[in-house]
């Protein structure tokens, strides 16, 4: 009866009503309407017919009316599409349809209609509908038939989206439970899909690159879910992608590059292990086609994946491969314009590279040394802006290796080529030197001093001396900022004080220089403090041959003279003497060496210093300084406390009047 209504819209609504009304009256299995005359087959037949007719009506709408109203018609049509689709929905809910019936009857009939209607809108919608509405197991088992329909569709149909959705559904199905995986293998899903995609791409040579990549991206996700152990499949997919990309220039399309990043991130997320991803030979080749900006983004994604999973990269080869991948961050790629890179972003990038370097480690010293050399080779190409970020972590990795080697005995019969601390120090020397040329002299100085300490622990006197020389040269020639000088001097004195490897001559030279620098600092208070710090260079507790009481006293006296001069300057410039803090500090130093047993520090000297301070504090021209007062008071308290301790210390302090 419905056939009588040939007007498309009316017919559609009529049939839709029919479908709705007849829905629960279908003679499905178990339904009350089932009988000898009416079975599931009839139900299916009914719905299929309804579907077919509705589709024909729907398609006919396209061709009615004048050409200029085409857009309006298409909009109308898309609003009505659910009416047609509902039939398929009904079909999917008929319980009596099993896999065989689906395969033999339902799918072929539906597909026949879809293909024959030759209508772009209908085909796209209905293919999608089929995929969404019927269960995934059915799709797997009918993959051939389903995929076979695609090349028969109109060329303007957006096949890639439908295919992608199909693959997505199948991926999710695979992810839902491990039991279903064998099914996939049985139907050879991967190769079928791979071939289908290949055919589609071939059939549409003008497909924009975004489409191609989306297809391969979906296929890759599918592969990772269904065949996680088949690296060769994943590599194949990437390889097909490379083939398609080759011959074109670097991608400019933002969406396409985004898709490639998604494509490349999928293996990282799945494997949780960059080492596995590094085995995909086509992986770096795909990255070649990214522009430098996206290359950096991808490199950052890779580094983040490593940090999140705390992957240990433990061979030099893997390090080499990894640094090839992230070379966008390591150096300026050839065709990169020196765009205005945001400074904060740049810092973040380089800091993440620095953190990455910390994760490169092997327990085998030989391998570790190779890793260090590989990293060094790469970062030295980074240019002056990157070195201050990348060199320090490499230096500390190397120093850790030196420590590890120290623990092992030096094998006198070892091969020429084996790694020794000496070799590492040579590499370190050259590496830190690159910093002095940038210029980053303060950083270089600090690193040289660290190396000197490590050399000290290895008993390598000439090496340690060389490092000190380098540090001193930097101080003399490159560090001119006053504040930086103060910090540098403290580091020099602090390091030198701990050196035990130097013979008398070397030590004397270095100490002499250090005291010289101290006395030449710009501000008098800084001078004073540095000079009295130098006093410790002449007295080291655990080294008996470094206990030169006289030189200690000389330093302290010199510090006193400087403090005096500072007072006079203050008087002259400001009309009032400065604070007595410096004197109190020097007093404390006197007490320090007094307790250590320096015979040159006498009770008389301490006493006169106390009187000096007291006089200064009470003089008219003195500045009010509660901090200095408190300092002096607590120092006096300390002396009182020491007196009351009794024993040797108490005896020492006894004669001092506070």
């Amino acid at each position, binding site marked *: 009866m419905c056939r009588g209504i040939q007007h498309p819209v009316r017919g559609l609504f009529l049939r839709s009503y029919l479908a709705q009304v007849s829905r629960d009256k279908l003679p499905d299995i178990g339904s009350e309407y089932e009988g000898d005359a009416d079975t599931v087959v009839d139900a299916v037949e009914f719905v299929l017919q309804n579907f077919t007719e509705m589709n024909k009506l729907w398609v006919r709408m396209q061709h009615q009316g004048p050409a200029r109203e085409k857009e309006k018609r298409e909009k109308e049509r898309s609003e009505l599409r659910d009416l047609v689709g509902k039939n398929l929905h009904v079909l999917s809910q008929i319980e009596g349809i099993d896999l065989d019936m689906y395969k033999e009857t339902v799918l072929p009939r539906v597909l026949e209609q879809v293909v024959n209607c030759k209508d772009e809108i209908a085909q796209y919608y209905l293919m999608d509908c089929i995929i969404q509405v019927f269960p995934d197991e059915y799709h797997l088992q009918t993959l051939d038939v389903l995929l076979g329909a695609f090349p028969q569709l109109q060329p303007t149909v957006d096949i890639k989206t439908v295919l992608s959705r199909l693959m997505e559904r199948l991926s999710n199905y695979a992810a839902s439970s491990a039991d279903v995986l064998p099914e996939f293998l049985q139907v050879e899903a991967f190769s079928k899909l791979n071939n289908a995609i290949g055919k589609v791409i071939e059939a549409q040579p003008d497909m924009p690159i975004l489409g191609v990549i989306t297809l391969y991206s979906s296929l890759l996700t599918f592969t990772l879910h269904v065949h996680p152990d088949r690296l060769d499949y994943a590599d194949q997919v990437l390889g097909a992608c490379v083939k398609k990309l080759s011959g074109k220039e670097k991608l400019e399309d933002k969406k396409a590059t985004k898709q490639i990043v998604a494509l490349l991130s999928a293996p990282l997320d799945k494997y949780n292990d960059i080492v596995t991803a590094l085995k995909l030979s086509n992986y770096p080749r795909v990255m070649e086609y990214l522009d430098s900006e996206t290359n950096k983004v991808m490199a950052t994604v890779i580094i983040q994946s490593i940090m999140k999973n705390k992957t240990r990269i433990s061979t030099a080869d893997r390090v080499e491969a990894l640094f090839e991948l992230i070379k966008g961050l390591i150096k300026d790629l050839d065709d990169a314009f020196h765009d205005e890179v945001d400074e904060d972003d740049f810092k973040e990038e380089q800091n993440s590279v*620095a953190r990455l370097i*910390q994760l490169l480690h092997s327990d085998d010293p030989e391998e570790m040394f190779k890793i260090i050399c590989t990293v060094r080779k790469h970062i030295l190409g980074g240019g002056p802006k990157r070195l201050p970020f990348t060199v320090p972590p490499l230096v500390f990795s190397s120093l850790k290796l030196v420590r590890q080697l120290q623990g092992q005995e030096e094998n006198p019969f070892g091969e020429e080529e084996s790694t020794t601390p000496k070799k590492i120090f040579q590499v370190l020397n050259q590496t830190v030197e690159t910093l002095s040329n940038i210029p980053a002299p303060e950083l270089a100085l600090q690193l040289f001093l660290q190396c000197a300490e490590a050399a000290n622990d290895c008993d390598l006197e000439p090496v340690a001396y060389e490092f000190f020389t380098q540090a001193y040269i930097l101080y003399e020639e490159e560090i001119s900022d006053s504040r930086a000088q103060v910090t540098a001097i403290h580091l020099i004195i602090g390091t030198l004080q701990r050196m035990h490897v130097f013979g008398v001559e070397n030590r004397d030279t270095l100490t002499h220089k250090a005291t010289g620098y101290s006395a030449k600092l710009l501000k008098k208070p800084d001078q004073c403090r540095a000079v009295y710090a130098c006093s410790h260079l002449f007295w080291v507790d655990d080294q008996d041959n470094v206990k030169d009481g006289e030189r200690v006293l000389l330093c302290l006296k010199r510090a006193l003279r400087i403090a005096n001069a500072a007072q006079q300057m203050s008087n002259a410039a400001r009309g009032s003497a400065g604070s007595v803090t410096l004197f109190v500090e020097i007093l404390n130093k006197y007490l320090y060496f007094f307790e250590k047993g320096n015979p040159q520090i006498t009770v008389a000297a301490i006493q006169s210093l106390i009187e000096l301070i007291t006089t200064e504090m009470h003089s008219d021209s003195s500045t009010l300084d509660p901090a200095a007062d408190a300092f002096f008071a607590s120092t006096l308290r300390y002396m009182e406390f020491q007196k009351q301790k009794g024993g040797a210390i108490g005896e020492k302090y006894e004669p001092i009047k506070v």
Partner: protein
Amino acid sequence: MVLVLAIGDLHIPHRAPDLPPKFKSMLVPGKIQHIICTGNLCIKEVHDYFKTLCPDLHITRGEYDEDSRYPENKTLTIGQFKLGTIGQFKLGICHGHQVIPWGDLDSLAMVQRQLDVDILVTGHTHQFKAYKHEGGVVINPGSATGAYSSFTYDVNPSFVLMDIDGLRVVVYVYELIDGEVKVDKIDFKKTATAPSAH
């Protein structure tokens, strides 16, 4: 009850990639009232991270710190004057590379006298220390990441949490040894003139 976190010498990213995850899960925002940082973070990201744990952040400059505007030393006072009793603790912070000889307790005691504080928090050596002397307490929280140190070969990641209550401070030290977090605690009490250890 005032909780003060003392932490420092992380050396991120030069010597360590990140804080140990076990420490990170323990340091939760909102529980700590003050953070004292001895220095050598070294980058802004670490600074920002600490800021999320507690807005009252005090940092002194270490020689590798990226931000050179941190002060060389700092003092802060915890607690208030109460009628009749002094319920105040003065804390001082200083990185320690300026105090020579490095790690020498007598020289550090001098700094403590100079800053006139009850508790001096200092770093640089990456070795945990809590030392009481007549003038007060010197605490070194060690390195929170266990970073390489020329000072010592055995660096376990560690930090310190101080619980200050009136005149009493309990120092909890958290150390990561062989993958496990071990906690130790030390009591200090401040009398009218000088603190003593229990």
